């Protein structure tokens, strides 16, 4: 993994409170799990970004190494890796996810 690639990923993670690396885009998801994750965050209602890495093998490999997580989508909230909806679903039910997200957006309130 090149340092440039790693740095650009870290910049992307830092630039978005909620970031999903997936297959396809918000408008045109190209994987059922990416669509499911977009639906999940649409229901939560906070702004989030989806970045398509389907055609970028080097970036997918770098992301897998950085997270020790083999599959897409990969979700980052406030710079921290949270896996996918298999992890976020139980976190939503327990109330932990709301705390994490409210905390992530605490500094953007007017």
């Amino acid at each position: 993994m090149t340092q440039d690639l790693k740095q650009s990923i870290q910049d992307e993670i830092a630039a978005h409170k909620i970031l999903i690396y997936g297959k396809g885009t918000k408008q045109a998801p190209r994987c059922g799990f990416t669509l499911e994750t977009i639906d999940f965050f649409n229901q939560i209602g906070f702004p989030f970004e989806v970045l398509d890495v389907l055609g970028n093998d080097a970036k997918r490999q770098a992301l897998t190494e950085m997270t020790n997580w083999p599959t897409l989508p990969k979700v980052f909230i406030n710079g921290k890796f949270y896996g996918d909806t298999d992890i976020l679903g139980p976190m939503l039910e327990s109330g932990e996810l709301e705390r994490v997200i409210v905390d992530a957006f605490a500094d953007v309130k007017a």
Partner: protein
Amino acid sequence: MITHEDIERLIRSALPDARVQTYDRTGTSDHYNVTVTSSAFSGKPLLDQHRMIYAALSEALKDGRLHAVELKTEANK
């Protein structure tokens, strides 16, 4: 394509006491819901529990027998 027995065998090779339930989501034997119960999960964060299963299934995920997994893990009480 991969069978329930193969998924169970891969997971049990890492977690011998695992109870493994699978559901073929698409009828094509490559998209599964997998629920694993094991004492090895106890005290571990959910993220790490899932990493343990992905590691056990990595061979099948890499060679394409298994395309996608929806995963649920539970620690034995």
